[in-house]
């Protein structure tokens, strides 16, 4: 709260009021302008363009809901939604528990805890482009993984086939991302009071029981938070799909956002792409509101 000794309300007058607010406004104006031009205008334009046929040469023309009906009647649209959901589900199933387990394991280490933390985080600092370059080779039919499989007498595994493509992506993404989540969980684990373990051990709880009834409930909020973040992040995934597989084979890795960018930058249907953006916006905002509601409801209960 401000001190109200020299309130502008007591001595009205535009000049006084401007002087009173001068510095505050001066510092804010650049950002107000930047946010307007580079965030609010694009957001508004996105909604507007979704009703237009965007044409750089002969100008934009209003087409009403045509973009939306074209998007909804495109079979690829449903493939992309299905792929995105499958990808999100698999990422949760395969990737989500790994950091929790890893964090618990690492914080139980008696020696080399520091290095164990850092090593897990190393893949996260690899620039995405380097990551894909590396894994293109690891997944190559003659790359190290298949060489190793052949070496121990197994058959080669085709990472690029239609059935395996999503799976290959999940391994790659889990490998890269689990380190940062692990570090967040480790910080959460460090905040759990040791007395709880002491007390439950005296009450006769075994190690598993302690993890199940002390550790995991204490991490509940953090787990929920990272769950929501992961769902939001994976729903927008498209870069690894683009670089590793180009959306193929046979649209097996075509995600929603990849289809959006394809509409825009391959077919130059900017209107349709904007319409897809609006649909995504509505769904994700609804999801955010829903999770906030659920979390609030959970706290009250």
């Amino acid at each position, binding site marked *: 709260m401000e001190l109200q000794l020299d309130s502008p309300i007591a001595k009205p007058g535009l000049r006084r009021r401007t002087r009173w607010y001068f510095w*505050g*406004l001066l510092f804010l104006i650049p950002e107000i302008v930047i946010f307007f031009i580079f965030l609010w205008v694009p957001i508004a334009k996105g909604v507007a363009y979704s009703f237009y046929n965007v044409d750089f040469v002969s100008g934009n023309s209003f087409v009403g809901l045509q973009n939306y009906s074209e998007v909804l009647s495109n079979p690829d649209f449903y493939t992309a939604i299905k792929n995105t959901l499958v990808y999100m589900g698999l990422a949760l199933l395969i990737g989500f528990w790994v950091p929790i387990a890893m964090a618990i394991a690492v914080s139980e280490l008696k020696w080399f805890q520091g290095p164990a933390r850092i090593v897990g985080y190393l893949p996260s600092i690899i620039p995405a482009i380097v990551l894909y370059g590396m894994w293109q080779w690891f997944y190559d039919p003659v790359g190290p993984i298949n060489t190793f499989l052949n070496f121990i007498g197994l058959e080669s595994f085709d990472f690029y086939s239609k059935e395996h493509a999503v799976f290959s992506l999940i391994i790659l993404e889990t490998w890269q991302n689990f380190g940062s989540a692990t570090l967040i969980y480790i910080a959460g684990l460090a905040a759990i009071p040791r007395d709880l373990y002491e007390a439950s051990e005296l009450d006769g709880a075994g190690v598993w029981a302690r993890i199940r009834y002390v550790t995991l409930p204490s991490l509940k909020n953090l787990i929920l938070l990272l769950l929501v973040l992961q769902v939001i992040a994976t729903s927008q995934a498209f870069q690894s799909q683009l670089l590793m597989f180009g959306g193929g084979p046979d649209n097996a890795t075509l995600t929603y956002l990849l289809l959006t960018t394809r509409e825009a930058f391959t077919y130059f249907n900017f209107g349709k792409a904007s319409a897809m953006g609006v649909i995504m916006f509505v769904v994700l905002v609804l999801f955010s509101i829903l999770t906030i509601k659920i979390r609030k409801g959970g706290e009250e209960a």
Partner: protein
Amino acid sequence: MKSAQERAIMSRYDFRKSGVKVVYAFMVACIVLISLSMLYPFVNTFLNSLKSTQEFFAFPAPFFPSKFLWGNYKESLTYLNIGLHFKNTILIFAGNTFFSLTFLGLAAFSLSHLRVPIKKWITLYFLSTLLIPAASYLIPNFLNLKDLGLLNSYWAYWLPAGANAFYLLLLKNFFDGIHKELFESARIDGASEFRCFLGIAVPLSAPILITLVLLGFSTTWNDFYWSSLVMQEDKLPLAGAIYTKIIYPGSTINWNVRFAILSMTLLPPLALFLFFQKYIISGLSLGAVKG
């Protein structure tokens, strides 16, 4: 962090049970395996960049190259003018840092320590953008930059860098923690608000600023897709250039040369990470607060 004598989930007593010992040994083995699988790609990438093509495809492939062929690095320069693209990346990064931190810093300072009318609404104007997923306005953002005539210019990075509600929130939270009395006494001594910002708020928030600079660096260094849309040819930053010229699906450039380029791209973020570990990791937990 936890000190050595403090107990964790398991106590010393637990270790007397043989079942626990076995599970613990298994766990340690898993961690070691995972650690190795984390390190292997780094080492492999670097060593592969020094192999000859025959050695690269030899079966079974040797782990170490028989001769260190530094010539691969020289050859990689014929595919990609790394110096030029490196310069572009640094230019983008420097401009981004300057614009985003200066203007966001001023705005955050104003919101937390200065008199602002309808403060609540202005804060909402900034922070509500956090709820809007960036992917949903990817396309209109591109069209907007095109309409403004900013495509293929560094301004297409520098100006939008300021529109970052996440950074604003972090800075504001940090400034909120600085005592108001510091500024009051400075004002009584005749300092202008700008002096207060530059002389008190900025030095006190050095840790968060360093974290944000590092975050900005990794964002710029990582971004290949957006830059490949916005910039062209000689103005591309390194990641964008590698994407369009070296690692597109179906690229035919020799693997060892590719790996030489990747190794070089990997080095700066790796070095920065090892130097600034503390700040990067603190930035990470900040990222978790975002939701």
